[in-house]
C-alpha cells in the first residue's frame, strides 16, 4: 500500500479504469450502412424509374411518421390518436402557401411543418388536460374539428377539396421527382437520426426517465409537462412536414383524405408491430407494412385485416414488438442510446 502511495506522489495520475462509451461495433456498422443507403437513395433520380422513386418517397414519409409517433407514444407517453390533424394541416398549409400565396412548393413543405408546430402549442394546452384513453380519443376529436373547419372553408375547396397540379406544373419533371425524393430522404432518415440524437441528449435522458416513472422524474427536477409539451410540438411539426410532402406527391387534397384516421391507424400499427419505444422498430414496421400491402394488393382490404390482426397478436403475445423481442433476446441494438461503462484494466491498479 505504501509503495502505491509513494508511486502516486512521484508519477502522473494513473489512466482512468473505465470509459463511458455509447457506440458498439454493431452500431458503427449500422450507421455506415445507413449512410450508404442514404447515398444510394439520393442517387435514385439519376438512374431509377419514377415509380421506384415514388415508392421510395412513400416508404420514407411513412418512416418519418412512424418515428414521430414512436417519439410521442413510445418515449413521451402520449398515445395520440389524432396526429392525422397535423397531416391534414400540413397538407393544407402547402395549399395555402404554394397555391394561394404562390411560394415555392418545396419551401412551403417546410413552412407546413413550422405552422403545425405552432398550432400544436395551444392545442396541447387543451388536450393535456386529458390522460390515458381520454387523451387518445380527445386528440381524435380535435382532428375531427380541424377536418370540419377546413371542410367548411370554401376558399380551401370545401368538402370536395382542391388540386395543386398547377403549382407543380411550373416545375420541370425531373427536378420535381428528385426534390420530392430528397425531401423524403431528409424527412425519413432525418427523423430517424433526429430521434436518435434527441434520445442521446439531456432531453432524451429526461424522456427516458419520464417513461419509466413520471413521479420519480419530477422528484429529481425534470419538468414533465414541459418535456411532454416539446415532444408534442416536435412530433406535430414532423407530422406536418410529412403531411405537406404527402400531398405534394398526391397533387390533390380533400378534408376526408387529409384528415383521415387511417393515417394514424397505419402509423400506430407500424410502430407497435415493429417495436414501440425502439428506434429500429419503426423501420421494421414500415418495411413489413409495405411488404404486406404489396403481396396482398390483389385482395382489396385484406391487407388491412391482416395488419390489424398482426397488431392484436403483437399486443397479446409480444408486447415489445418485433425489434423489442430481438433486442431482448439477442441484445442487439443498431442505434444505441444507452451509455455503457467499459472497464479497462490498467497495470497500476493491480495490487
Amino acid at each position: 500500500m505504501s509503495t502505491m502511495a509513494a508511486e502516486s506522489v512521484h508519477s502522473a495520475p494513473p489512466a482512468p479504469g473505465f470509459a463511458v462509451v455509447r457506440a458498439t461495433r454493431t452500431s458503427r456498422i449500422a450507421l455506415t450502412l445507413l449512410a450508404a443507403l442514404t447515398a444510394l437513395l439520393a442517387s435514385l433520380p439519376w438512374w431509377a424509374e419514377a415509380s421506384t422513386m415514388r415508392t421510395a418517397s412513400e416508404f420514407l414519409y411513412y418512416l418519418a411518421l412512424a418515428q414521430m409517433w414512436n417519439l410521442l407514444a413510445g418515449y413521451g407517453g402520449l398515445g395520440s390518436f389524432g396526429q392525422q390533424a397535423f397531416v391534414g394541416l400540413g397538407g393544407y398549409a402547402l395549399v395555402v402557401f404554394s397555391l394561394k400565396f404562390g411560394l415555392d412548393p418545396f419551401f412551403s413543405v417546410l413552412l407546413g411543418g413550422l405552422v403545425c408546430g405552432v398550432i400544436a402549442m395551444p392545442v396541447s394546452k387543451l388536450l393535456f388536460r386529458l390522460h390515458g384513453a381520454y387523451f387518445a380519443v380527445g386528440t381524435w376529436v380535435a382532428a375531427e374539428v380541424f377536418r370540419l373547419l377546413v371542410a367548411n372553408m370554401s376558399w380551401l375547396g370545401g368538402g370536395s377539396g382542391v388540386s395543386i397540379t398547377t403549382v407543380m406544373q411550373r416545375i420541370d419533371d425531373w427536378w420535381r421527382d428528385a426534390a420530392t425524393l430528397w425531401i423524403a430522404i431528409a424527412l425519413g432518415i432525418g427523423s430517424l437520426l433526429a430521434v436518435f440524437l434527441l434520445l442521446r441528449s439531456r432531453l432524451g435522458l429526461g424522456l427516458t426517465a419520464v417513461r419509466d416513472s413520471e413521479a420519480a422524474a419530477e422528484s429529481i427536477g425534470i419538468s414533465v409537462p414541459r418535456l411532454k409539451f416539446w415532444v408534442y410540438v416536435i412530433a406535430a411539426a414532423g407530422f406536418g412536414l410529412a403531411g405537406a410532402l404527402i400531398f405534394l406527391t398526391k397533387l390533390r387534397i380533400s378534408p376526408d383524405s387529409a384528415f383521415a384516421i387511417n393515417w394514424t391507424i397505419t402509423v400506430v400499427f407500424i410502430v407497435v408491430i415493429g417495436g414501440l419505444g425502439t428506434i429500429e422498430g419503426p423501420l421494421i414496421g414500415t418495411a413489413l407494412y409495405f411488404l404486406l400491402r404489396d403481396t396482398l394488393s390483389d385482395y382489396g382490404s385484406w391487407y388491412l385485416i391482416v395488419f390489424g390482426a398482426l397488431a392484436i397478436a403483437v399486443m397479446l403475445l409480444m408486447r415489445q414488438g418485433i425489434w423489442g423481442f430481438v433486442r431482448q433476446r439477442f441484445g442487439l441494438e443498431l442505434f444505441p442510446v444507452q451509455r455503457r461503462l467499459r472497464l479497462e484494466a490498467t497495470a497500476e491498479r493491480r495490487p
Partner: protein
Amino acid sequence: MITLLDTLVQGLLLGGLYTLTALGLSLAFGVMRLVNVAHGDFMVLGAYFALVIMQTLGLHPLLSLLIVLPGMAVAGYLAQRFVLDRTLGRDILPPLLVTFGFSIIVQSALLEVFSADSRRLDAGDLVTASFNVFGDFYVGWFPLLITVLAVAMVAAMQWLFARTRIGRAFRAVSDDQEIAQLMGIDHKHVFALALAVASACVGLAGVLFGMSTTFDPAIGPAHLIYAFEAVIIGGMGSFWGTFVGGVLLGTMQAIGFRVDPGWGVLFGHAAFLLVLLFRPSGLFPRTRDQ
C-alpha cells in the same frame, strides 16, 4: 318559435339515440376502465347482423333483435374473455390498440362482405310516421320511441348496478379487482359479462339506428366519437349523466345544423371541448379516479 321548438325536440330525440349508443361504452368504462375504440363499429355490426337475418329469415328488424342481441352479447363475452382480458392492466396502450385492431378488422371485413353501399333496415311505415302535437308541429313516432327506450334502458342499467347481485359484483370488481376475487368473484367472468351487456346494448342501438337512417361499414368511428362525447359531457361512471350528455350533444348538433348544415357535428365537438376546458370530469361524474 316552431323552429326553435322543433330544433330542441330534434336534439332531444337525437340525444336519445346517442344515449342508447353511449350506454354500452359507459358500462364498459365504468366496470373495466375500458375505452372500446371499436364501439361504433360494434354498432354498425349490429345493423349488418340484423340485415343478414332479415334477408335470410325474412324477419322484421325488431324481431331480428331476438337473434342480434344474444349474438352480440356472445361476441362481446368472447372478445373480453379471450382477447381483451389479457390487455387490461396499468398500461393504457394495449387495450386501446387491440380495440383499434378490432375496429379495423370489423370495418374491413364488413367492406369485403357487403361493399361500401349504403344500406337501410326496411321497417316500413313505422319509421316515417309522425303525429301532430299542435298546429304545424309534428314529432316522429320512431325517434320518440327510441328516446323513451333510451330512458328506460338508463333506468334499467341504474337498477342493475344498484340493486342486483351482479351489479354489486360489477361495482366491486371495478373498485378492487384483487379483493373482489377474495369474495369468490371470478373477475374475468364478470368483466366478460360487462362487455356482453355493453355489446348487446350497442347492438340494439345499431338495429334502431339502421332502421332510422342509412348505414355503411365506415360510419362506426363517427359514432364512437359521439358516444364518447356523450359519456364525457355527462360524466364518467353515471348512467343518467350519459343520458344528459347524449341529449346535450344531440341538442348542440341540432342547433348547429339549423345554423348551417355543415356545422351540426362541429357544434357538438365545440360543446365537448368546452366541457373539457371547464369541467373535465363532466357534469355528473361518479367514478373516483381514471
